[in-house]
């Protein structure tokens, strides 16, 4: 996985009625923050997409990388400022289709919702 254990670590996961929820810690030390942005580090939106995808791979135990075949909609509601490490919650609902999975995903902490997405993942 591209970002797991480098940009973020899984602290815990729990299954619930609607799917699986992960608590992750995002590092503020990854080199990408030197360029995004030099004076105000912000977690790139595409890294949120990658975290959703990698945690889906973990939840499904597919053993191979998944790819977005379609992103129906993703709203990035609040920038994730990265002046220090941050603990976040990722909630996933994965529904199998013929050769893909429908994914609903949310990134939040105790105060804010940062991103909400509906997408289709395939191998």
């Amino acid at each position, binding site marked *: 996985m*591209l970002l797991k254990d480098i940009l973020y670590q899984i602290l815990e996961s729990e299954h619930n009625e609607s799917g699986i929820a992960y608590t992750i810690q995002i590092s503020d030390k990854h080199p990408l923050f030197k360029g995004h942005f030099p004076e105000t580090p912000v977690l790139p939106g595409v890294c949120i997409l990658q975290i959703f995808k990698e945690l889906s791979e973990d939840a499904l135990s597919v053993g191979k990388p998944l790819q977005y075949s379609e992103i129906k909609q993703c709203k990035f509601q609040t*920038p994730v400022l990265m002046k220090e490490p941050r603990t976040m919650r990722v909630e996933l609902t994965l529904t199998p289709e013929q050769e893909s999975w429908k994914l609903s995903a949310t990134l939040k902490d105790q105060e804010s919702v940062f991103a909400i997405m509906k997408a289709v993942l395939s191998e």
Partner: protein
Amino acid sequence: MNLIPDQPILTGDQIFPYIPQRPPMVFVDAFYGMTDNAIYSSLLVNPDMVFVENGRLLDIGLIEFLTQSGYVWFCYYEKVVLQKSDMEITKGYICKIKNVQVLNTPRVGTRIYSKMDVIFYSSSFCTIHMTAYTEDGTLAEGDFDVISFS
């Protein structure tokens, strides 16, 4: 058939005044301006990019390329076309993407192109339809809302 543009008006570091990102998060290396009512940019996929894995630019790399291609135009239009010479390049980010289809991902060494059609524009927000492609066909396309903030 997608147009393969030539004669960029900005390349490499010349693009830096028009995007807030800096290496290793720069995902556009040529800007061609407007041709046939669309705006074009491109990127040579190299192996050192942060979103390259197993010799291919990942889907998220394609999306970042499309986003930054849109942002180059956004700032170029403000600074050069509208001649807002005192405009500060603020931080821009994707606030919404929708109907994005990823058909293929490019290999390292491939030059990928973007075509942008502007759907809505204001000085702090724009909606654009973006297509990423190579000489061999379309890689991805979708609609992007980009917002800037101080």
